[in-house]
């Protein structure tokens, strides 16, 4: 049992939870999985529908090679095995937003097999989640039930859009780990450029399988691979935010424990999470589950990949978050914490690297992590909405480093950049904020101060800490523009020697 074991105290003793996630990630691609139709978000209903997507008679699917490349890239990013032979199957069921009457998916032979990713909890500790598989499939259209009391409208723009379904092993043990896993997955996908990861736009959706068991059972399962050591699972469909994932799990675990403790049994079923009430409710039971009648899609040939092609993708893989974090630590000397925060988000990392380019990385990290993120958080803004560009902040950091301005003045300049914009060097120039490094000017101020405050000057020899008062006075007299280092050195010489 690790420190991170999540226990729920029930009336009859402690319980643990076990989770596996199926994440549906919309593939970044201009065209759909099997048709040339466009995939832009927010387009007018049914404006991005080809004859194939609408399942007109006689239409046939043709695989989009770019999407295959994206899936392979993702597989490699998940440290997973790439299956050079995979196949598309039809999953048959009737629904108005599924025009073909079947979804083309990969049931038996997915394009990507076993992999694993390392995730991080809030306290910085890490855990590994096994990936069972990744397969390609078509998204369905959207049924709109609330436009009319007696009719349902169907928008087929999403019909046929390429999804990657990424299935984890049941290696997730806490609500926090579940969201950390999805968050890490999202980071990797965004680094790879294979999924936008915007959960609000439905680019990333999670199905969460939750079961509960007594302490010790999970370890038995891990030893044997025998699922009978675990409880019956319920699948919570389509959860679309990290917060909802945690809430849904917390609710679902308690619901299951209550049922078992009252002498009931858990029915394997599909449930929906209601974000308004925070509860999960049954969508369909196992008995109502569809018989999908999977069979190989005869309209498509098996997908065969050339090893050379896969190798080429591997060679051109971008740097991934874990690698980036390591590099930030080893090459740039950042702390593990700072490196982790910066690497955890592609946009942040990109921003930081622009700021740090040719400059002091630690100083850059401090400014990005503390000043910038602090300010963005306060305003509720994301990194891509930042009024201060990475280029501006980088120039500011350079001005601090070369002694043109002090850190304190830099904060003022940052404020100006934030509210008014402009070029940092120009702002410093125009507003006369340049640091005074002219020791003669500083000496003159110090001499005057010592002359006017002889008692305090004498005190410094006995109590060196009181020198701070002089520093403050010098800065005040020079409107903060004095180089603090120079001030300190001159004061030391004059007061201590």
């Amino acid at each position, binding site marked *: 049992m690790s420190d991170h074991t999540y226990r729920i105290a029930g009336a009859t003793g402690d319980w643990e939870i076990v989770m596996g996630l199926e994440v549906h990630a919309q593939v970044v691609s201009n065209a759909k999985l099997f048709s040339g139709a466009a995939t832009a978000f927010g387009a007018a209903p049914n404006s991005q529908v080809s*004859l194939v997507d*609408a399942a*007109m008679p*006689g239409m*046939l699917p*043709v695989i989009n090679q770019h999407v295959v490349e994206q899936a392979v890239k993702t597989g490699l990013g998940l440290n997973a095995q790439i299956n050079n032979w995979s196949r598309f199957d*039809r999953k048959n069921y009737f629904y108005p937003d599924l*025009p*073909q009457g079947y979804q083309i998916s990969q049931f038996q032979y997915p394009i990507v097999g076993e992999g694993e990713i390392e995730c991080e909890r809030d306290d910085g500790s890490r855990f590994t989640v096994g990936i069972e598989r990744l397969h390609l499939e078509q998204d369905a259209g959207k049924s709109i039930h609330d436009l009319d009391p007696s009719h349902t409208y169907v928008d087929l723009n999403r019909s046929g859009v390429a999804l990657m379904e990424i299935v984890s092993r049941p290696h997730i043990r806490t609500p926090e780990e579940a969201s950390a896993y999805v968050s890490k997955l999202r980071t990797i996908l965004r680094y790879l450029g294979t999924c936008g990861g915007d959960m609000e736009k439905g680019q990333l959706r999670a199905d969460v399988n939750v079961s509960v068991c007594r302490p010790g059972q999970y370890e038995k399962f891990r030893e044997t691979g025998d699922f009978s050591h675990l409880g019956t699972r319920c699948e919570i469909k389509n959860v679309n935010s990290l917060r909802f994932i945690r809430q849904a799990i917390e609710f679902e675990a308690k619901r299951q424990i209550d049922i078992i403790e009252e002498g009931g049994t858990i029915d394997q079923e599909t449930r929906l999470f209601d974000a308004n009430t925070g509860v999960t409710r049954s969508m369909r039971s196992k008995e109502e589950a569809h018989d999908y009648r999977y069979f190989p899609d005869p309209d498509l040939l098996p997908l065969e990949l050339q090893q050379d092609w896969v190798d080429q993708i591997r060679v051109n893989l971008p740097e991934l978050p874990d690698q980036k974090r390591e590099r930030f630590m080893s090459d740039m000397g950042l702390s593990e914490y700072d490196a982790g925060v910066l690497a955890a988000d592609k946009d942040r990392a990109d921003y930081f690297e622009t700021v740090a380019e040719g400059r002091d990385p630690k100083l850059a990290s401090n400014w990005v992590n503390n000043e910038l993120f602090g300010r963005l958080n306060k305003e509720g803004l994301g990194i891509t909405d930042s009024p201060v560009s990475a280029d501006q902040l980088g120039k500011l950091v350079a001005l601090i480093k070369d002694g043109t301005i002090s850190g304190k003045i830099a904060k003022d300049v940052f404020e100006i950049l934030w509210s008014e914009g402009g070029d940092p060097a120009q702002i410093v120039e125009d507003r006369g904020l340049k640091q005074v490094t002219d020791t003669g000017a500083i000496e003159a101020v110090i001499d005057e101060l010592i002359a006017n405050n002889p008692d305090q000057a004498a005190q410094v020899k006995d109590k060196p800490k009181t020198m701070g008062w002089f520093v403050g006075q010098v800065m005040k007299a020079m409107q903060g523009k004095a180089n603090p280092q120079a001030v300190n050195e001159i004061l030391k010489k004059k007061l201590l020697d």
Partner: protein
Amino acid sequence: MSDLLKLSLDEITTKLKAKEISATEVAKEALSACQAAQSALNAFTAFDEDKTLAMAAASDEKLAKGEGSLIEGAPIAIKDLFAVEGVSTTASSHILDGFKPTYESSVSAKLWDNGGVFLCKTSMDEFAMGSSNETAFTGPVNNPWKGANGEMLTPGGSSGGSAAAVAADLCYGATGTDTGGSIRQPAAFTGTVGVKATYGRTSRWGTIAFASSLDHPGPFAKTVKDSAILLQAMSGHDPKDSTSLPQDVPDFVAAVGQSVKGLKIGVPKEYRVDGMPAEIEEAWQKGIDWLKAAGCEIVDITLPHTKYALPAYYIVAPAEASSNLARYDGMRYGLREDGEDLTAVYENTRAAGFGHEVQRRIMIGTYVLSAGYYDAYYLRAQKVRTRILQDFDQAFEKVDAILTPSAPSAAFALGSKSDDPIAMYLNDVFTVTANLAGVPAMSVPAGLDKDGLPLGLQIITRALDEETMFKVGAAVEDAAGFTAKPQKWW
């Protein structure tokens, strides 16, 4: 009817190129012949005179400039399974009532690119499911050939309308699709030539799917040469069909008439089935003798898994059909029967829209794909399919072509098998193997039975070796000297 329509495709295109006649004249002649025959034969599901005449006029312009393509100006009938832009395309099903595609099937588009003129849509068994054309929503097609006592006969199916149209000299060629014999069996029943090429040689894009892995678009023609011309005109790689073969199309026409001397012809013992009429046996023997006389070497071969082909076919084909036909749900096009909720709309629409045979096959297909039955049926059928393919591979190590009867009987009376699906399915016994294996096969008229009805012989060759098939087919045609025509009564 003038004698114009009695000409072969080769003959009429020669006349058109020589400007002895215009495409417009030919088109008008064909249109009026088809329309005059419709009440008797019931072979057609749609006409579009404006389209036909416009296409003929376009052909005339090209011909006038000496730019005519392979079949420039020849009116071609199109099975109702192929989408023809702006023309009713229903698969002879009620569920596609009123459906006019905004697109053109790849096969018909290629025919038009090669100068073909759209003549009409032809009737078929609903969704190509049948061997007698009796399951068409618009009713059975009458074979131009009548029984000994004047009884109405089936033209075969599923491409019955196309076969009847070619046999009755109402067009110069027609398209069909062959999923289990739907071109070859009607060709045999109507004294026409029917070809199913290698799977993937002709594109399936824009052709309404019955069983995707078995569907082969192909031509009906009056002669072997015409069939080679038509196959030439409709073949070729199509990037819109993932199963289309990325292969160049050989010169099929050039193969017709080439010597068959020295070719090894396989005669499979498994095709001598119980209860096969003696006349079929005799026709087969004649074919063997003809080819021997032409210098072929006859080799007895075995295709040991033949007896499993029909059951395997009647699992795979309905399985794929059950899924392919799911899109006919009343939501986007075709028939819609309202109901109190979604399920009722589905049920009412599909109950009213699909005929009994289609419903039967959807049920069979759904059953064999169901959890718990998949391995026992679908997977085993696929294994049989692999064995059938191996049978052919082994046979083609020894022989260049295989000669068999096309169908186990001559055309039968309408209604005589419609209550017995199994008896109906047995019609495909000689033809389904080539669909399961995807190898090329054709039916060539070989003679008449005692009732004066045509019988066909089937030639099967290696995948991608249509040329040998056409060579042998032409040799059989040549030796048979088949010139019989049904007596005109329509």
